[in-house]
């Protein structure tokens, strides 16, 4: 029977001096500047310590030391997040980069699934490389006497299916962010793929949380630590049905592991994780083109509700995104590296399907029917299934964000304060068309330049407003808030995959209200009373009890 009481494990202290560390704000900013930024490009980060621990014991020791000095800790791994979660504003940076190995591989008899045990800083790319090529030693079997490595050799190819686009992301970071990406349409977010974690918490103890072992009872968890019992009252707000990465997870009988997944590191540092592996299925990538966006949206609805076909993901590119690609194709064909997109096309939908010669014809005939009902045809498409071609399609999907970033970089030369305003909102299935219409009408009325693309299978489209001047930026921010209001009204999330980090606090309030945010804060201070970990993430930097 699952229980709601968990006992933390304690460590013997290791002398602080033994931990590899850099001390001094100046030396860190001059010699280690990359530890003060992440992909959010938030500026102004600084830190007094930079640590490179090798073990949980070292982390526990440095936590104690930082508490003595009343300094907070910002966790840092691959720094690929885009909401500033890894940017420190004082205190210490805890870089987990030395903890980047595969510990082992095992088979869970109960779940009948393979899992890989990894340290937090290993990248998703590296995990898949090791798993696909089975680069594991015999002694890495968990437990060793089971000889799982030999057995795994005879299995079909496996992989870790979470693909948040940035595959250099670390597993620890993706657990902290509950990362998702396009393929969450089929496989769900990181949450669905985590079997067990170990977390170093603010008391310096470690929690070993196995999914299914600890469940909330009477709305509470009790954590027994070296500093006494911590009682965690789980929040009472309702989570949206739509894809969501905003704030803390809650559910009346929730699993303790889910409190930590997606918590943006505010409760501690994940030091080890068991991740589920999945049998690899060859894929084929497809892009279909439409002359009218309404037809494209209709196709999306048909495709995602099809009983016969289960796409890996469904991605959307509207007219402005295609115009950017067309312009780039004329200027530098090799950058886009795809055939020319016809001028009369206004929308493209990209999706991957499982590839098998046995089912290919059946799937394509089904898709052909859908396309004909939506005023397109199989002739207005691209298709590929070789690895190099799939990589080419992936590059194509990522070309638009890259072009947009270049445009913004150019504009920054004239207005240094300008930045892109990229939304990350989702809505419930039934509101997809309404939300798209709301985006379009609002942006047109405002006269702003924009580009839209994203994970339309999950009703999660990124609207990117490209301000041409400071007035546009102001107008864009106002519009962003209107979009957030509307997304929440449509049962969605203000942040479907990027998280809240240090830049989206006000939108969290829109979603959960003041009471909801207060409940989250209460957990933060129950579990991390000294506010040791990742202060500024989810809650404002100045947050107090």
């Amino acid at each position, binding site marked *: 029977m699952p229980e709601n009481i968990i006992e933390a494990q304690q460590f013997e202290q290791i002398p602080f001096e033994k931990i590899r560390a850099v001390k001094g704000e100046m030396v860190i900013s001059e010699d280690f500047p990359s530890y003060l930024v992440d992909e959010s490009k938030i500026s102004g980060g600084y830190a007094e310590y930079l640590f490179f621990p090798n073990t949980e014991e070292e982390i526990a020791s440095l936590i104690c030391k930082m508490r003595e000095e009343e300094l907070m800790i910002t966790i840092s791994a691959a720094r690929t997040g885009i909401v500033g979660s890894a940017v420190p504003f004082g205190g210490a940076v805890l870089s987990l980069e030395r903890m980047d190995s595969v510990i082992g591989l095992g088979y869970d008899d109960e779940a009948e699934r393979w899992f890989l045990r990894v340290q937090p800083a290993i990248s998703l790319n590296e995990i898949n490389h090791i798993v696909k090529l089975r680069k594991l030693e015999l002694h890495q079997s968990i437990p060793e006497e089971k000889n799982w490595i030999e057995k795994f050799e005879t299995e079909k190819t496996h992989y870790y299916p979470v693909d948040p686009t940035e595959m250099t992301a670390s597993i620890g970071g993706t657990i902290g962010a509950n990362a998702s990406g396009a393929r969450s349409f089929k496989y769900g977010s990181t949450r669905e793929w985590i079997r067990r974690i170990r977390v170093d918490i603010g008391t310096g103890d470690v929690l070993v949380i196995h999914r299914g072992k600890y469940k909330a009872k009477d709305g509470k968890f009790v954590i027994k630590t070296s500093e006494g019992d911590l009682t965690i009252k789980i929040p009472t707000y309702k989570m949206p049905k739509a894809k969501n990465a905003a704030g803390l997870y809650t559910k009346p009988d929730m699993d303790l592991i889910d409190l930590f997944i997606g918590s943006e590191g505010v409760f501690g540092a994940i030091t080890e994780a068991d991740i589920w592996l999945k049998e690899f299925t060859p894929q084929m990538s497809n892009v279909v083109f439409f002359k009218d966006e309404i037809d494209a949206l209709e196709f999306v609805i048909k495709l995602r509700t099809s009983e016969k076909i289960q796409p890996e993901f469904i991605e959307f590119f509207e007219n402005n995104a295609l115009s950017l690609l067309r312009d780039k194709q004329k200027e530098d064909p090799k950058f886009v*590296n795809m055939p020319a997109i016809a001028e009369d096309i206004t929308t493209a939908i990209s999706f991957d399907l499982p590839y098998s010669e046995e089912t290919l014809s059946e799937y394509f005939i089904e898709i052909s029917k859908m396309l004909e009902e939506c005023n397109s045809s*199989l*002739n207005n498409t691209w*298709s590929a299934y070789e690895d190099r*071609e799939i990589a080419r399609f992936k590059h194509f999907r990522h070309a638009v964000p890259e072009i947009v970033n270049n445009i913004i970089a150019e504009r920054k030369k004239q207005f240094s304060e300008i930045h892109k305003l990229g939304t990350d909102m989702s809505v419930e299935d039934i509101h997809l068309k309404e939300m798209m219409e709301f985006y379009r009408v609002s942006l047109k009325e405002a006269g702003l330049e924009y580009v839209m693309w994203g994970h339309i299978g999950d009703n999660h489209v990124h609207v990117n407003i490209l301000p041409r001047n400071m007035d546009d930026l102001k107008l864009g921010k106002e519009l962003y808030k209107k979009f957030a209001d509307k997304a929440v009204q449509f049962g969605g999330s203000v942040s479907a995959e990027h998280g809240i980090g240090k830049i989206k606090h006000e939108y969290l309030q829109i979603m959960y209200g003041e009471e909801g945010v207060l409940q989250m804060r209460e957990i933060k201070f129950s579990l991390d009373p000294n506010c040791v970990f990742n202060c500024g993430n989810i809650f404002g930097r100045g947050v107090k009890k």
Partner: protein
Amino acid sequence: MKILILVKQVPEADKVAVDPETGTLIREGVASILNPYCEYALDQAAKLKRDNPELHIEVTAISMGPPQATSALLRCLELGADKAYLLSDRKFAGSDVWATSTAIKEGIVGLEPEFDLILAGKQAIDGDTAQVPAETAEQLGIPQITYGVDVKINDKRVEVKRETETGYQVLSTKMPALITMSKGSNIRRVPSMQEVLDARKKPLDVVSADDLNIDESKIGLSASPTQVDKVFAPPSKSGGEIIDGTDPKAAAKKLLEYLKENSFLRV
């Protein structure tokens, strides 16, 4: 009009490394693909077909290789070939470039003797020898033009724009002829879902040495006059001189002097 495309399945070369100790290729986890230069030849055939509807061009892809090479031919069918043949037989195993060209020549004579034009990639990205197309042309006794980037058909003649070390050259020859294709500036095509679907209905035949009545003494390892002794990565270059670029004018002057002194510039 009949155009034949000679194609080869190759490992994705940029992912293949050479084991420094054994000198063998490390192909673990490396996918097999249609040789990119063969794909350019196929693109050229598709273009000729599109630009010359009155010629009723039929495009046939031919390859020699193991059974799994059918996947490369399937890609040819997706990208515009009308039919395909795979010459596949254990008796072909170990063939060098000469024995391979013999097998291909026999295949052409046995399967598509009435061809007008043969297009091939200038070389395969695994062996990089660029020998097979040339030797096939010789064995068939037809003219060949290498390193083409554009091909036009002019009545019974073919006109080829070809790359040279200093620019381009336009050559013309009577058909039948064999042309090898370079990359040029083309962006590789992508088949539509309709083309992928249609490809599964096109003929793709696997043909053995016996089907072609090939004399066994002319193919395979024993009929190969050459053999690869060792494959190795060339030693990486070391040393060199780095010019400090802090002062661009001074750096440019120094570079100019170096080029003059070493006779790289005729100034």
